[in-house]
């Protein structure tokens, strides 16, 4: 398939695509398996785009469209930040910025039994994993990893949460560590939890550090790597000059 892509003059990989664009012609590539991610659909014999964004390709056969939105569409194995909106006998109802509220079963905790159901107040912020995401059902969450361990999931106490876009979350979670976090980490110590649904939680020893970190992250959304480093540097220069 690699060969086919390179001979095709109009290969759209790493290009910006808009809905309706046709990226692959299946009739010309028999007996090949391809995997489609978000933003693509099969329309008869062709693969077409349904969301505007950058078309990505990962060897050997994965295609998806990368885009940034303010709304989150749940998908399995995403780590998200949710807010408890209601407590029922069997489930917590959690808002994860999706089309519908998500269910967090009261037993989906490490060593969870009927006896030790955790108590969350309405408004509590949780770091959770999406385990079921069918379009016609409410998504289901879990506070354990696949092996049943708590693994950092659960209640986020104190700190400050702000909402941004899914694109910013993906940038913060990308590897290698994104420059804004790296540079902030050199000067300050802080805790951060990033949900793929565009929510970011920050905690540090002093409120002023939290404000600095949160502000720097929010500012970095549309900046390049070099611009991010300059922005962080300027921020610290400003703070130093104002405290002296």
């Amino acid at each position: 398939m690699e060969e086919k892509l390179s001979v095709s003059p109009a290969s759209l990989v790493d290009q910006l695509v808009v809905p309706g664009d046709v990226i692959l012609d299946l009739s010309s590539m028999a007996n090949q398996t391809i995997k489609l991610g978000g933003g693509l659909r099969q329309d008869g014999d062709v693969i077409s785009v349904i969301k505007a964004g950058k078309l990505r390709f990962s060897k050997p056969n994965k295609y998806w469209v990368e885009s940034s939105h303010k709304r989150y569409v749940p998908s399995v194995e995403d780590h998200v930040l949710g807010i408890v909106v209601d407590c029922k006998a069997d489930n917590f109802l959690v808002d994860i910025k999706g089309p519908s509220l998500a269910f967090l079963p009261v037993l989906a905790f490490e060593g969870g039994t009927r006896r030790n159901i955790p108590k969350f107040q309405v408004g509590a912020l949780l770091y959770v994993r999406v385990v079921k995401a069918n379009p016609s059902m409410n998504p289901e969450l879990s506070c354990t990893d696949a092996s049943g361990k708590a693994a950092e999931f659960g209640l986020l106490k104190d700190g400050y949460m702000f909402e941004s876009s899914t694109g910013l979350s993906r940038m913060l979670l990308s590897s290698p560590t994104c420059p804004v976090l790296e540079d902030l980490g050199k000067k300050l110590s802080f805790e951060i939890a990033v949900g793929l649904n565009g929510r970011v939680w920050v905690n540090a020893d002093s409120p002023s550090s939290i404000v600095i970190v949160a502000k720097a992250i929010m500012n970095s959304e549309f900046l390049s790597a070099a611009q991010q480093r300059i922005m962080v540097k300027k921020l610290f220069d400003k703070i130093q000059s104002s405290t002296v």
Partner: protein
Amino acid sequence: MGEMVREDGRTANQLRPLNCSRNILNRAHGSARWRQGDTEVLAAVYGPKAGTKKNENPEKACIEVIWKPQSGQIGKLEKEYEMIMKKTLQSICILTVNPNTTTSIVVQVVHDDGALLPCAVNAACAALVDAGIPMKHLAVAICCCLAESGYLILDPTKLEEQNMKSLAYLVFPNSTTSVCTEEASLVDGEPMEHGIITSVTHGVMLVDNYLHCLERGRAASAKLSDFLRKSLKSQLQSDS
């Protein structure tokens, strides 16, 4: 006939300057401002939200259009616009991806100087892209006017609109880029963008005149869809 000069010095086929900006509202999930000359429309998309409205199929996504006029209450004309836009947007969105959800599109008229409905359709389409609502393809809308003397003009101003015998609002699919060969992407022997999504006419016109309108509209829609693609790309580029 082609040499007809209009009040603002445009030729019959010339569109007014276009301007589109996206992601301008903070709280909406997607928003866009579309300007054609002095006509300006702001569209905001909220959703998908849980549940559909009454009398809607819960197995599909529901699209709701709310028209906000520049001033005053909404009347029959605005209700009609809402309905036309709803039908148009329903046909370009993929409704089965998010069943049992409602997507609201709020259309705020900022200034009306003719060709209001096409401008609103273009704005709503850009806002839907901004919100990331799954769509089959984009749509571009254009207004054609037929004068008493039989000549056609595109994208009229309010004054021109009032002096015309009849007018047609036409919505076309955008031209897409494809890795397929030209012949493979044809639908019934014609390219996709020659199809028509919505056609609304006011006043009387001959069949020949209507076909003429379609032809001019198609030519102009190619320009519009190039503009839409370019503006979407430039803004996506700055995001990433």
